[in-house]
């Protein structure tokens, strides 16, 4: 033993949490929606989330998806509250910027689905940058 147990790298423990049945379902679902490779999303979560947030990820995600139903239609499709409050992948400030840009695209005449896809791409860029 050369170090204290509580000072060691927690990545392995965090990875073990993320690969359980329910967590894996959540990671796959987010990765699919945002078009991010699962492995990159897992790595990002391990680097940025603490252990309790990771443990609670499925409950937060399910709760966030339920709350999403009450959001305005465009924000619901982008996952504005889901990816900032429930699963905090990006900051509120970044999401505000993305929302403004998506609303601007719709105003310019872009179909709503295209604007949503562009919004999700922006979220992905923020996560992967």
């Amino acid at each position: 033993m050369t170090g204290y147990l509580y000072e060691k790298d927690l990545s392995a423990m965090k990875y073990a949490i993320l690969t359980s049945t329910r967590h894996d379902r959540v990671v796959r679902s987010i990765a699919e929606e945002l078009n991010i490779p699962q492995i990159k999303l897992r790595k990002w979560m391990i680097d940025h989330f603490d252990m309790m947030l990771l443990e609670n990820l499925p409950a937060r995600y399910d709760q966030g998806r339920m709350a999403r139903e009450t959001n305005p239609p465009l924000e619901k499709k982008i996952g504005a509250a889901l990816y900032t409050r429930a699963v905090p992948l990006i900051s509120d400030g970044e999401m505000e910027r993305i929302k403004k840009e998506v609303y601007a695209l719709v105003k310019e005449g872009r179909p709503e689905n295209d604007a949503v896809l562009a919004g999700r791409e922006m979220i992905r860029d923020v996560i992967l940058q």
Partner: protein
Amino acid sequence: MKRTVDVSIPIGPIHPCFKEPARVKCETKGEFVLSAEVELGYMKKGIERIMRGRPWQEVMFLAERVCGICSVIHNMVFIEALEQMSAIFVPDRAALLRVIVNELDRMQSHILANFSYCYTIEHETLAMYLLDVREQVMDELERITGARVTCAYIVPGGVRFDLRHEDALHLKANLAAIEGEVVRYMHMFESGPLIALRSRGIGVLTREAALEAYAVGPTARASGMPEVDRRLRHPTYKTLGFSPVSRTEGDNYARIMVRFQEVLESIGIIRRCLDMLPEGPIRGGGIPGAGEISYSGEAPRGELSYFVKTDAAGRVLDISIQTPSIMNIEACCHYMLKGVTSLADVPSTFVSADPCIACTER
């Protein structure tokens, strides 16, 4: 999550007031807590992995070993999940006996949680009184099931032992004594000026934050969310005219008071069960078969969910357990502890959420 702050204070993994090891890392500015993290990994059991591939007859015993404090509800939720999956009938007498044992388990768990809190705020007298009354509840649990913990009382289609007439009389008499003592201790807690100083307005969890973190059980009910009580959706509880306890303050005081009030509510539920207890069999028979189900029940700390997948022989192919402490500890470290103005309030706020590390590190 890393930021530059005045001081980073680790509390735990070994702390005299924590029942189990967990490390709370607080980033502070003076005594003011800016943020907190809880690190786990000191007692990971990997019990879900151990359960996979085993027959249900073994898994039912493993399930109640997830947690030593609320073992009855783990047993109950796992067995009821199997029963739902395989349409196994439970006789009325057995269903009510399950509720009696589950409520006794809830009572001892709540009293233990309140003991821990009183001990953490250094009110040792009240803490010891509470431990004493918990022993009386444990004695009743032992009288009915034959064991204090890991009772394995609930089996598919019924319960293991019947309640004898003399035991029912003893339980009724003892409940009256326990009720009197709990009411007395609750008033001591309510009226203690020093208790109020350490508890009121501290570790506040707002309803919005509780919703966001999906807080459950008494932690959520103390923040004005009575609807989170899973007992409201349980067929046997529905027949008992039960209404959940709720408060709106959302602070340490409210969480402890909700547990006191729930102990009294549990006594009422047990009395109603004893009054309604019909004569009849305690086992309806039935063998779990193949299926897949997600089933939830109300543990002492909140919603406990089991996802179970079995094959035709009743072997567990996949299982996933979502324990209430996962949500409550997360709500505690990211919402309640944030903004606490004294480091002395960190352990008490943490304990007020009744964190069960054994459940979390299942």
